[in-house]
């Protein structure tokens, strides 16, 4: 009996070693949305010299700031404005030496890549009349930041967002630099 008790006493601390350890992915809280743009970095839409909205530029400026291109963002705000077309924006990016990627064919893989790498991207909505920043895309949900109201993120079902984007010429564009580091875990 004493031997059994002694063995049990020995086993208790050994078993205790397995309790309370919490390593692995479940211990990490993911940031929501993935591109968790702070309020101070969000660029509101403005009217350009021709009186048009500058939603494309506003989206790009927010993404520049998220990707540590603060000087570029300031320069872009002071230099460009008004409505924009994919080819014209690409020409401006080329002229300014900006590293970027874009699609105009509604390829969802581009959106998945942009959010997977935490860069985000600008996407067309409202039949191509407006651009917003896509800041999250997972299996179920998408989040956008509308430069006409930068106070809050707008969450929509993934399929709804994709349907809207594809019905709006499927243009998506993003700069390719270092995204902001995740919040420490």
């Amino acid at each position, binding site marked *: 009996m004493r031997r059994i008790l002694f063995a049990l006493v020995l086993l208790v601390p050994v078993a205790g070693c397995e309790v309370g350890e919490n390593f692995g*992915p479940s211990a*990490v809280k*993911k*940031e929501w949305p993935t591109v968790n743009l*702070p*309020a*101070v*970095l969000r660029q509101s839409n403005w009217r350009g010299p021709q009186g048009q909205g500058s939603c494309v530029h506003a989206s790009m400026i927010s993404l520049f*700031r998220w990707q*540590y*291109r*603060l*000087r*570029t963002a300031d320069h872009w705000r002071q230099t460009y404005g008004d409505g924009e077309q994919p*080819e014209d924006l*690409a020409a401006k990016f080329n002229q300014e030496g900006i*590293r970027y*990627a*874009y*699609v*105009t*064919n509604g*390829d969802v*893989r*581009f959106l998945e*890549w942009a959010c*997977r*790498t*935490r860069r985000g991207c600008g996407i067309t909505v409202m039949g191509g009349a407006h651009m917003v920043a896509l800041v999250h895309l997972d299996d179920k949900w998408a989040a956008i930041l509308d430069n006409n109201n930068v106070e809050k993120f707008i969450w929509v079902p993934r399929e709804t967002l994709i349907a809207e984007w594809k019905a709006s010429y499927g243009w998506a564009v993003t700069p*390719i*630099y*270092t*995204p*902001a*580091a*995740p*919040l*420490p*875990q």
Partner: protein
Amino acid sequence: MNKLLLSVLCLLAVFAAAVPCFADTVNGVLAEERIVNLPQDQGKWYVSVVGNATDSRYNEIVGWFDTNASLKKLKNQVHFCPVTSDTAIYQARYASNVKVLPTVRMQKADGTVVYEAAGKNIPMTAAGLNGALAGAANTAQGIRPVLPWRKDMERRCPGPCPNPQPQPQPDPAPQPIDDNGPPNVEPEPQTDLPPWGVAVICLAGVLIGIASGYGRQLYGKLHPTVK
């Protein structure tokens, strides 16, 4: 004539089949006529150096990532984020979780902090910081570091210290586009004893041992034990 037409049609059919294959790449995206390979760098780690733009210590540490070969290599393997305290991004994402400036922080892609040192706890030299980062990265990845004496090392003497001057803060230079995952940080080679040095120490040890043995015998003869 019919054969000629048939061959032309066959050629056209081959081209028609080939074009969509080029356009629909696995990791590429069709942008007009160009195919852009997008970086699949979601597994990259982050190294943030946070500090005051006018602080010489902060500028020195940021400078190490350009002047020290190992840190420069590391910089190209991670998302390198130099952040100054006068920026909005500092206020929004660092001010609440950074206690002292400057701070050096290494994080996994999911945000897990692998290494963090601040203020006086940051190693004094670039090699020291590299060693600390290497140790932390290896521990986090469960890698046992290769002992320095087992590596084919070159002898190195400390060179003149870099003296970076404070400069206005432009956007950081773009990093190379690649698909790197966790960094492979190697500790700096350290100077240690050459093989002949080890032999000399061993020989000296043997001689001391023999001499002490004889000494003990001589002492025993001169001072016989009283029983």
